[in-house]
């Protein structure tokens, strides 16, 4: 049996597998760490095997809750977890399925503990602060990330936002579309959130907090399994909207929008 500790944001995940290639997939995509005993027990225990299914033709995930067991199923993975999102079994087709299934599990874990949310957003660091750029697929998250270099890119697809501290914090995300993770363990405070619209003109207009909550609820990575869990999202989104100034950002495909932000 191969085992390792991986870390996503501030969460430790103990991973075990019988397969070398699975451990290679994990090491290639996630931050592995030493875990001294004094750090306490892991947040999550995960056992992974491969050889499941086939490449997914559709992105849809089927979710089922029976008693205290929650099952997430797609053509390329089967994830079974307890309803505290503490112990999980995962069977995957390949490394892409592994990454996606972990995103499903991790998003459920952090909402369950009211720790934070994962957003459809890129996150760029400017002068020590994180700026979120949210939107659906095709809105320009990856484009914004690419245009913002050499600034640090904490996410280009799925931003991890911690909401359990004094202020919202953005963490490096291993759930990427184009750019590689930084694996930097230290978060940065979130200074702004932008909802993206590609445009011929550059403009930035404030969004009221209540409007923001209304508009970001569909930009959270979350696969509802149980309404008692899902209901936690509103307080988390409210927490973010209350503390982070938000804007509609109309941007061209160049980096001039940074002049409106910084």
């Amino acid at each position, binding site marked *: 049996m191969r085992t390792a500790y991986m870390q996503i944001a501030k969460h430790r995940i103990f991973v075990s597998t019988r397969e070398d290639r699975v451990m290679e997939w994990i090491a290639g995509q996630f931050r592995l760490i030493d875990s001294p005993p004094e750090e306490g027990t892991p947040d999550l225990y995960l056992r992974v095997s491969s050889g499941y299914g086939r490449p997914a033709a559709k992105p849809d995930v089927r979710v089922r809750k029976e008693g205290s067991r929650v099952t997430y199923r797609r053509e390329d993975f089967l994830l079974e977890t307890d309803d505290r999102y503490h112990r999980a079994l995962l069977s995957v087709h390949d490394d892409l399925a592994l990454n996606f299934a972990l995103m499903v599990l991790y998003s459920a874990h952090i909402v369950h503990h009211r720790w934070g949310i994962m957003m459809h957003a890129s996150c760029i660091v400017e002068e020590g602060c994180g700026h979120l750029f949210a939107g659906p697929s095709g809105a320009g998250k990856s484009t914004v990330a690419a245009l913002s270099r050499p600034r640090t890119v904490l996410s280009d697809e799925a931003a991890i936002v911690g909401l359990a501290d004094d202020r919202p914090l953005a963490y490096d995300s291993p759930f990427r579309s184009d750019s590689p993770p930084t694996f930097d363990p230290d978060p940065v405070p979130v200074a702004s959130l932008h909802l993206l619209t590609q445009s011929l003109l550059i403009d930035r207009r404030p969004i009221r907090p209540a409007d923001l909550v*209304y508009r970001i*609820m569909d930009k959270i990575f979350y696969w509802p399994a149980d309404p008692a869990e899902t209901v936690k999202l*509103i307080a988390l989104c409210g927490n973010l909207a209350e503390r982070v100034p938000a804007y509609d950002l109309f941007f061209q495909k160049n980096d001039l929008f940074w002049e409106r932000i910084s």
Partner: protein
Amino acid sequence: MMWKTAVHTDAVELNGEWIVLDAEQYVITRLNETGGFLWNLIKKGATVNMLAEALVEEYGIPRETAKADAENFVARLQEIGLIVNAA
């Protein structure tokens, strides 16, 4: 008649506006300040008459108007499934 908020609903208040999530149906509803005021009273078990009385006290509107407003509000919330009969 008394009401209670539907199971698996929660609301946040931001600068006087309210956003309510019905996690069963995954539907979001916006309430203005008065709506949020009444929502909180419903959560505490207020009847329509108590809601009307609270509107009179809080906003100084005529009792008849307050009663009609409270009835309309409750009917609308019931229609969209955010509250159910507590009896």
